[in-house]
């Protein structure tokens, strides 16, 4: 981990920190998915909420997610510096001091939880505080470096925004809110392990016990299929609990079938077995031939989750009934 004041020898300020560098600490791309799932939870509650207070609730969820990311980047600066995917982040690249990232994370955490409590309600504030603490303390500081189940358990933090959104609108979090949480929770292992199959060299170098590094590529591909088999029925379930309607059922079944086919193709592939770096220079999606099945599942998993929540959002926003 990075000390509060001292930086590791290889991390030196390269240039004066701009406000954009601080914004990058908030992981804006991850924040956008969190905002979308939180908004879906808020709309699916089907309770009237003043539009301004609804916007404040979503802003608090976004800022809380950004605060978690800043705390993660402060603590993980040492391993981020060793991984190709993350070494350009503001702290390991020397643009922002670790202590500044920590201060920003704590400040935004307090602002987001306090504002959520005072402007919306304290159940939503409690769930937001729990999410931030779970991500920063349980996932980042404990699980990530100690067990290959890190993203399975830690995935709870990324899964909670729909329940926060629902609680913000309704003041309660009923079973359908937790079903949305369960969908993201069960989606996470297949999504991240597919990514880690073609970034395992990075994780190995950094000493992070991701599943392919600890158990090997074949075991990871088998577990991806097992989690996919559990995930797809759960993704379809809202159509039968009064949450989703016909459109949702169609999206969940059609996408679920594609998801399972891609997981099966990944199982039969040799993805993750090469020790060389299989990525090209085209971001997260540029890979060489052997890793394409892993890349395909990773990319489709994002599309599928987005489609599921977009279908729920559209049905509830348009007032379409459940099955």
């Amino acid at each position: 981990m990075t000390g509060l004041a001292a930086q590791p020898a290889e991390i030196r300020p390269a240039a004066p920190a701009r406000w954009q560098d601080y914004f990058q600490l908030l992981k804006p791309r991850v924040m956008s998915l969190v905002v979308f799932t939180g908004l879906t939870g808020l709309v699916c509650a089907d309770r009237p909420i003043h539009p301004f207070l609804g916007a404040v609730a979503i802003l608090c969820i976004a800022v809380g997610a950004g605060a978690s990311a800043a705390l993660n980047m402060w603590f993980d600066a040492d391993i981020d510096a060793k991984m190709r995917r993350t070494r350009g982040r503001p702290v390991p690249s020397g643009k922002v001091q670790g202590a500044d990232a920590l201060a920003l994370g704590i400040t935004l955490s307090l602002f987001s939880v306090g504002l959520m409590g005072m402007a919306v309600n304290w159940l939503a504030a409690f769930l937001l505080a729990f999410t931030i603490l779970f991500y920063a303390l349980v996932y980042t500081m404990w699980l990530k470096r100690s067990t290959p189940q890190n993203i399975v358990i830690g995935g709870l933090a990324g899964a909670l925004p729909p329940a926060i959104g629902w609680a913000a609108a309704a003041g309660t979090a009923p079973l359908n809110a937790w079903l949305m949480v369960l969908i993201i929770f069960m989606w996470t292992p297949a999504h991240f392990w597919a990514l880690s199959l073609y970034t395992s060299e990075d994780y190995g170098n950094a000493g992070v016990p991701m599943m392919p590094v600890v158990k090997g590529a074949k075991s990871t591909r088998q577990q991806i299929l097992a989690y996919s088999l559990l995930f797809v029925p759960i993704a379809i379930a809202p159509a039968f609990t009064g949450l989703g309607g016909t459109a949702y059922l169609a999206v969940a079944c059609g996408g679920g079938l594609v998801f399972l086919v891609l997981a099966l193709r990944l199982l039969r592939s040799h993805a993750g077995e090469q020790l060389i770096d299989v990525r090209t220079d085209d971001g997260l999606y540029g890979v060489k031939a052997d890793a394409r099945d892993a890349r395909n599942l990773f990319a489709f998993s994002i599309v599928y989750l987005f489609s599921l929540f977009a279908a729920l959002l559209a049905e509830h926003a348009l007032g379409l009934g459940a099955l």
Partner: protein
Amino acid sequence: MARQDLTPEEKARGGRNIALALGLIAFVLIVFVTTIVRLGANVFDRAPI
């Protein structure tokens, strides 16, 4: 128009200061409008005397 005599450090600091000022102004506005919205709802919810 941007001043030409500023060092990169001063330009970066200026940008950070403006971002911080905008963030604080936004926060003050959010708290103000939230107060009006919540106060207004509670006033309307009161039973007639």
